[in-house]
């Protein structure tokens, strides 16, 4: 026990006594680990942000979008028939989530006058599929369908246009048209470019305004057809795609065209893996260069210290102790450099304007923190370089002839 303590104390003493030399040799390792850790961390964070941004629009892995229309009239299928067919499909194939989305426009009465706003009419489970994370309030629930006042979820620009700071005043907004209705804002999401207003509404509800809107030719003109989105296991995507096409068109009487295709970002994992590989390759090269610097200085100093090593032998130092001391000195030093480098990398990455760099300045709802993996990797790399660079000097130290070393 005290043997181990003694070895550590000895190594630390060396580092302390030869501060400037150690410092010099560590600049390379510091820079290498700093660069590698920063780049790895950034790469991982960028990849994660990209993945999240992509999933927000395309859905999670694996999302299959299904559209159905009458090839002659171009009209979507009748609501009840479609609902029944989908319900049966979901049950039969054990599909986790089936969401619907339709794009349309809603006329909101804002303080400055009536304003048409891009509106996504979605089912409540659309939020799960697209990782929607409200920054305030909540996302839709099934119960919202029964609500007397339609629930809406808007973005921050919408709130600003409405002249409302947040949801504390339980803000409402009037949806104009033939049959105006007062809608309640239940949640706020961080979405849209610059001043663009975004609103979400429930796809279908029990309210009379919906039935009216559905037959309103004005709405029908702006509103696109409803898309069904299925969240299915990634390895069953192809099977589901084929089955859904077949089953749905059969269930709807064979008259309708049914199309199904995968929409979630694919190949993202491979891209990230490639990115990490490239970063690791570059980092390894820089680290090897830094390690060579440490090795070089280690070799020079071990020769200078042969006499000192001989003297320590006269104190009863075993070969093991001599080896461990020289090795540990190298490891202690590079580990310290690694620690500082990882710290510096964390400071750098934390202070980078990631939202501006990655997302055109649009706030990212949940910005990932500094990846622990990158920090751990940096520390391991620094320590490993120290061990490798310390190996040769340690062998030389052990093989030095004591009597020659202490001879004057």
């Amino acid at each position, binding site marked *: 026990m*005290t*043997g181990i*303590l*003694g070895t550590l*104390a*000895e190594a630390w*003493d060396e580092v302390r*006594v*030869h501060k400037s030399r150690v410092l010099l040799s560590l600049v390379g390792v510091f820079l290498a680990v700093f660069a590698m850790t920063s780049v790895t961390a950034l790469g991982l964070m960028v990849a994660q942000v990209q993945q999240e941004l992509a999933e927000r629009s395309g859905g999670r892995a694996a999302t299959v979008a299904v559209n159905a229309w009458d090839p002659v009239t171009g009209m979507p299928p009748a609501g009840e028939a479609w609902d029944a067919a989908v319900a049966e499909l979901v049950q039969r194939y054990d599909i986790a989530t089936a969401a619907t989305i339709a794009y349309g426009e809603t006329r909101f009465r804002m303080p400055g006058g009536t304003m048409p706003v891009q509106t996504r009419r979605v089912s409540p489970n659309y939020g799960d599929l697209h990782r929607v994370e409200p920054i305030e309030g909540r996302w839709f629930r099934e119960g919202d369908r029964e609500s007397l006042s339609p629930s809406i979820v808007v973005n921050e620009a919408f709130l600003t246009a409405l002249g409302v700071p947040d949801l504390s005043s339980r803000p409402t907004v009037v949806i104009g048209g033939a049959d105006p209705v007062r809608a309640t804002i239940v949640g706020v999401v961080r979405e849209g470019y610059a001043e663009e207003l975004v609103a979400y509404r429930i796809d279908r509800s029990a309210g009379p305004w919906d039935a009216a809107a559905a037959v309103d030719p004005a709405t029908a003109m702006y509103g696109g057809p409803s898309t069904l989105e299925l969240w299915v296991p990634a390895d069953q995507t192809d099977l589901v795609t084929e089955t859904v096409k077949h089953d749905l068109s059969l269930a709807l009487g064979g008259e309708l065209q049914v199309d199904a295709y995968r929409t979630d970002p694919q190949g993202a994992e491979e891209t990230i893996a490639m990115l990490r590989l490239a970063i690791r390759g570059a980092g390894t090269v820089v680290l090897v260069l830094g390690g060579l610097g440490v090795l070089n200085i280690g070799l020079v100093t071990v020769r200078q210290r042969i*006499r*000192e090593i001989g*003297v*320590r*032998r*006269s*104190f*009863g*130092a*075993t*070969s*093991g*102790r001599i080896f461990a001391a020289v090795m540990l000195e190298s490891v202690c030093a590079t580990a310290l450099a690694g620690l500082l480098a990882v710290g510096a990398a964390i400071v750098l990455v934390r202070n980078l304007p990631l939202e501006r760099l990655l997302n055109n300045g649009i706030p990212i709802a949940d910005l990932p923190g500094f990846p622990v993996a990158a920090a751990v990797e940096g520390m391991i790399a620094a320590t490993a370089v120290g061990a490798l660079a310390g190996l040769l000097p340690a062998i030389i130290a052990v093989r030095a002839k*004591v*009597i020659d070393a*202490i*001879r*004057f």
Partner: protein
Amino acid sequence: MSLLELRGISREVRLPDESVLPILTGVDLDVAPGEHVAIVGRSGSGKSTLLNLLGLLDTPTSGSYLLDGEPTDRLSARRRSRLRGEVFGFVFQQFNLLPRRTAAENVAAPLLYARGRDYLRRRSTAREMLDRVGLGARADQVPERLSGGEQQRVAIARALVRAPRVVLADEPTGALDVETGAQVMALLAQATAENGAALVTITHDLSVAALAGRRFRLERGHLSPLVEAGALGAATSDRGPA
């Protein structure tokens, strides 16, 4: 029983041209616990080689070396290192203090290789030792700022810090002026005696050798008792009670 026992020790080195150079031939020597032995010889006579053999830093080409009656030729490298640290303390001509470490750190250094209490209490033990050699006030000085005499006193403190049973001093006054050398030698003899350790001093200076209970001459690798004209009587009387 002898503490150290050399029987027919020879040491040869093989030179780069494949010829063999004998350094020591047929050396017999006994050192009893606590006694002071001096070995006198000219430069190049093999004194340091003999001392290195005694201190387990080197191995003989032939002959037997018993430490506490145990043959040393079968010891593992690890055991030799351990024994070296526990049994011997070294004092070198060139002091060999660790550069850029304070006097206290130098004296504590051998205790880095000790275990348990000795290891844990190394700092306070080192300071006590420095007090004993009269350098308590200079404990935090680095060797570069100490005089030669002071450096050798630090080395003496360091040699004694693990309470060795034998102190091996290789020309301890060789790098000092005569007066300082005499003071340092007196301190070495006294401190070793206080510790109850045996002292083997190697020197080419007869006045240094005069402090020893028994004296030998090493000449071209042969060790023989030292017989000095006029000093014979003193040498014989020294041997008695020691």
